[in-house]
């Protein structure tokens, strides 16, 4: 009897130890957060994260074969590589290669926005730098990267410094804020960041797109009134002028929560702002519309419903493409719709690829007027050419 009791007592620490030694870790779900882009020579570049490194691969045959990876950050660090918070890639006017990512810090919901550049098509990278001058251990995450018509590198992100400062004064503050910065010296340094707007959503990606005049515009989920999670549009001024932010969607979806679902934006040569966004005021819905900041979008169209997510949009001439993931009980379909009249009408949805395993968010890419979808799947990266 005493022996049994002793045995039981010996077992006790085992049971208890299952709860000890906790440390905060990063979500280790399928890390399929990747971004891809074509350079001016038509070479495809892909960035994703593995083993603490952002890695760069390229392809000269439209994704059929990928090069061996190059490590962007020589020293390993933690990297967010989830669907809405993935490494980004962009090119300078002479194919300088720019990469940004968000680095998790020790506490939950914190991060630093990181940046590195390569002058030689990815053969060598600079030591990564932290874009923001603020070094508080708080959220600076969900980086978005673009290059403007003057070659300025623009980075925007979600930032919680105002939330913490306001709450420290005992006042309420919904959501986070959008901050941005830019580099006038090809990414050697970034100017001190400025706030675009208070009370953005905390966990939805920011969409950036270049306008015909070369400036960079942002489309992102904001918070209006009591947790109405509609979207805002702003041109990110890098010339000292104040950026004007205007509400651009009016779905009135109210949620005290994390949609984990950011929008997409593509601006045509005619200046039309083609956008896609998600809301679930009634049933979950992905919308297409042409933004008219301050007013409801024009040509609104519910493009997909339940099980659809993470849409992207691209435009070339009068052709507009929409792509999204459609989940069902068997896996994921990569769905596509196309308009040939600049977004006035779209054809019926069609499946252009399928995956039984997990997938990342689809990303529409253009090369000489041809559309492709970059789709990172558990079985590997795929570049799916859109059927003409």
């Amino acid at each position, binding site marked *: 009897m005493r022996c049994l*009791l002793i045995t039981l007592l010996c077992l006790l620490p085992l*049971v208890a130890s299952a*709860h000890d030694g906790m*440390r905060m870790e990063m*979500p280790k*779900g399928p890390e399929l957060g990747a971004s891809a882009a074509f350079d001016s020579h038509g070479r495809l570049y892909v960035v994703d994260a593995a083993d603490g490194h952002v890695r760069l691969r390229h392809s000269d045959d439209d994704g059929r074969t990928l090069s061996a990876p190059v490590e962007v950050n020589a020293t390993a660090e933690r990297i967010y590589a989830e669907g809405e918070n993935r490494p980004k890639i962009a090119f300078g006017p002479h194919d300088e290669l720019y990469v940004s990512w968000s680095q998790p810090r020790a506490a939950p919901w914190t991060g630093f926005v990181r940046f590195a550049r390569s002058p030689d098509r990815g053969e060598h990278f600079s030591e990564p730098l932290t874009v923001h001058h603020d070094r508080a251990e708080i959220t600076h995450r969900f980086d978005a990267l673009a290059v403007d018509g003057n070659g300025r590198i623009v980075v925007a992100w979600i930032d919680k410094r105002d939330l913490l400062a306001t709450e420290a004064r005992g006042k309420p503050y919904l959501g986070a804020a959008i901050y941005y910065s830019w580099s006038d010296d090809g990414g050697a340094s970034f100017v001190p960041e400025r706030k675009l707007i208070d009370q953005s959503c905390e966990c939805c990606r920011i969409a950036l797109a270049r306008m015909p005049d070369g400036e960079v515009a942002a489309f992102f989920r904001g918070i209006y009134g009591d947790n109405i999670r509609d979207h805002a549009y702003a041109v990110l001024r890098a010339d000292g002028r104040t950026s004007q932010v205007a509400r651009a969607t009016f779905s009135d979806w109210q949620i005290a929560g*994390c949609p984990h*679902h950011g929008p997409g934006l593509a601006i045509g040569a005619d200046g039309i702002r083609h956008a896609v966004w998600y809301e679930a005021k009634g049933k979950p819905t992905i919308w297409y519309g042409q933004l008219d900041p301050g007013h409801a979008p024009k040509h609104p169209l519910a493009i997909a419903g*339940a099980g659809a997510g993470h849409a992207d949009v691209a435009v070339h001439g009068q052709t507009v493409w929409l792509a999204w993931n459609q989940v069902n009980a068997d896996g*994921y379909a990569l769905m596509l719709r196309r308009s040939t009249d600049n977004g006035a009408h779209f054809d019926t949805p069609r499946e252009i690829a399928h995956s039984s395993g997990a997938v990342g968010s689809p990303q529409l890419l253009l090369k000489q007027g041809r559309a492709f979808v970059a789709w990172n799947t558990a079985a590997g990266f795929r570049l799916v050419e859109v059927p003409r």
Partner: protein
Amino acid sequence: MKRLLLAFALWLPALACAGTLQPLTAADVPALLQPPAHGARIVALWSLDCAYCEPNLEALARLQRANPHGVELVTVTTDSIALRAAIEARLRSMKMDGYPARAYAEASPERLNFLLDPDWGGETPRVLVIRADGSRRGLSGALTPAQLHKLLP
């Protein structure tokens, strides 16, 4: 001594179960969504990366404690069970470790979202209410006191 031993032996499995995170796979979903024998089962979906989830879980726990016989509460995190240590630490810090807890153990989390509730786009927190009469309801976002009150059977 015998009585002490018996009490101890009975207490041990309880200690082992409370707060022991169980995997949730696609095959487990039908059982989780099965109507309870009486009252309501509340499936509280949350994620580590959701600041709204903590107060929501705490409010649901208060509701359950006030209605221990009518409400069964199960927490499900959409984070991978590979993050067991971080998830269990958070459950403990939220004092939610006394409730049955599940974590996603499926390579395709969105597929699990869809199987749990096809009308759910993955936003968190999400609460599924399954009643003994077979009816089911999904609610997104941190629930207001009025919404919480309506969850009661």
